[in-house]
């Protein structure tokens, strides 16, 4: 049970002189639900981008299911699925086509692919809409489809980058219920970020809080509360990170935040 599946050791990402991520280290155990919290611009997205091979770390070691993320990139890529913070579906393809393309990109044989697509689409209750174009989907439906897509290649680790942003309470509850099931039944490791602290308190078994590029606290909700002498995770969080607000966009400015993404969609 204590097998380590994600290992970050003295991870650094610099943009010019600016250290977005400043020598962070953490371990995630197999099957664990791990929450990565922090204010805007703290380095959350940059860390997720390094974990998911989209950014090269400036230095440090990053291992995913035994694969060095920088040296064995393709093997590392097969081990995880990701639901991005910003929408990432092809609007002009149908739900089924989006799933199918994903399956082809991960070289899943046709028979298995079709079978899994059917299972997953039924699971996220989109099977009867499988031939509809994504542009006709609501925000919640898109998110559900993105989760189904992230699971298609049966990853060991699932990354969820603010997955519940903009979703209604019903969809949110459904989603977390499902995530918990994946972790319990399939032993899947879940790594997620969120700004809703009650979600993290509810679901996460382990929490890390990052601020100004450094991990300032690690542990279970209980441990964090005890450490800060507070009652809830939210209080602990506020005590640790302070009450001032941060800039909306992250300092690595190539990370489009949700607002920009939505604005771009409206421009279309």
């Amino acid at each position: 049970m204590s097998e380590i599946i994600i290992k970050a050791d003295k991870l650094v990402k610099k943009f010019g002189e600016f250290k977005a991520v400043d020598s962070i280290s953490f371990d995630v155990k197999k099957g664990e639900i791990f929450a990565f919290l922090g204010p805007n611009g703290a380095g959350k997205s940059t860390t997720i981008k390094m974990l998911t091979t989209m950014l090269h770390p400036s230095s440090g070691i990053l291992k995913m299911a035994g694969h060095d993320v920088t040296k064995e990139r393709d093997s590392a890529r097969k081990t995880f699925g990701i639901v991005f913070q910003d929408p990432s579906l092809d609007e002009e393809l149908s739900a089924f086509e989006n799933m199918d393309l994903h399956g082809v990109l991960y070289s899943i044989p046709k028979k298995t692919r079709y079978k899994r697509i059917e299972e997953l689409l039924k699971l996220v209750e989109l099977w009867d809409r499988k031939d509809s174009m994504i542009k006709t989907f609501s925000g919640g439906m898109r998110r559900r489809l993105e989760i189904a897509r992230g699971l298609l290649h049966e990853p060991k680790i699932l990354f969820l980058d603010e997955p519940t942003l903009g979703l209604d309470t019903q969809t949110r509850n459904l989603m977390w219920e499902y995530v918990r099931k994946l972790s319990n039944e399939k032993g899947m490791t879940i790594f997620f970020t969120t700004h809703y602290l009650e979600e993290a308190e509810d679901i996460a078994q382990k929490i890390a809080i990052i601020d100004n590029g450094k991990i300032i606290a690690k542990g279970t909700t209980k441990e964090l509360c005890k450490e800060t002498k507070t009652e809830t995770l939210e209080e602990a969080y506020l005590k640790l990170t302070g009450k001032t607000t941060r800039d909306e966009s992250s300092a690595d400015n190539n990370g489009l935040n949700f607002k920009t993404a939505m604005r771009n969609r409206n421009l279309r």
Partner: protein
Amino acid sequence: MGIIYALWLRQIRRYTRSSSRLIGTIGQPLLLLLALGYGIGAIYRKAGEGDYLAFLVPGIIAQTVLLSGIFWGLIILQDKRFGFLSELLVTPVSRIKILLGSALGGSTISIIQGILIFLISLLLGFRPYDWLLVIPALLILIVMSISLTSLGAGIASMVNDFQGFQGINNLLITPLFFLSSALYPLNNVPRPLAIISSCNPISYMVDAMRFFLSNSTHFGIEKDLIVIGITLVLTVTFAVDRFNKIEM
């Protein structure tokens, strides 16, 4: 192979599902064909230069491929902005394959658009000089479309917003077209214009098309083919290089 085919098919699907894109990239060439072909055709004949339609059609086909090629290359910009590129880039598929599949889809579409314009020009009274030579003309069309889609893809990899896209349209596509031999013969134009047009690879693409479709050439087909070949190598290298440098 399956991966490249799937990415190619994705572009084709998007094309067949969006009639506005089809009209957008075929409308302008069609308009020029009608307005210039009929409008200027009469004066052109009076000036003793012969059949303007025979001169114009290869140029308009080239313009179609120019417009549509760069446009479909720029689809990568859309993928970037609307997030789909993130999905593509975290899959265990090499960037070369992603670029290849998407660009081949884009150039297939430009080829179809070019052929469409050719067919329409037949309805308007254009006749190729020799039907057999339509085959090498088609080959030129294919090479041209790959070249221009690559150019579009390369630029799209560098630009991050649609304002940039507009600029490219105004600063690149329009001059590439108007400062080429597509609309007028280069024999009698003022020297500066002739020099500029001779530096424009599009001129050579048009010239090669004209050689096969209308049996006339300004630079000579050997020179045309050399320039077209060099342009292909340069644009593809440019696209690969820029696409590899995308950081999300």
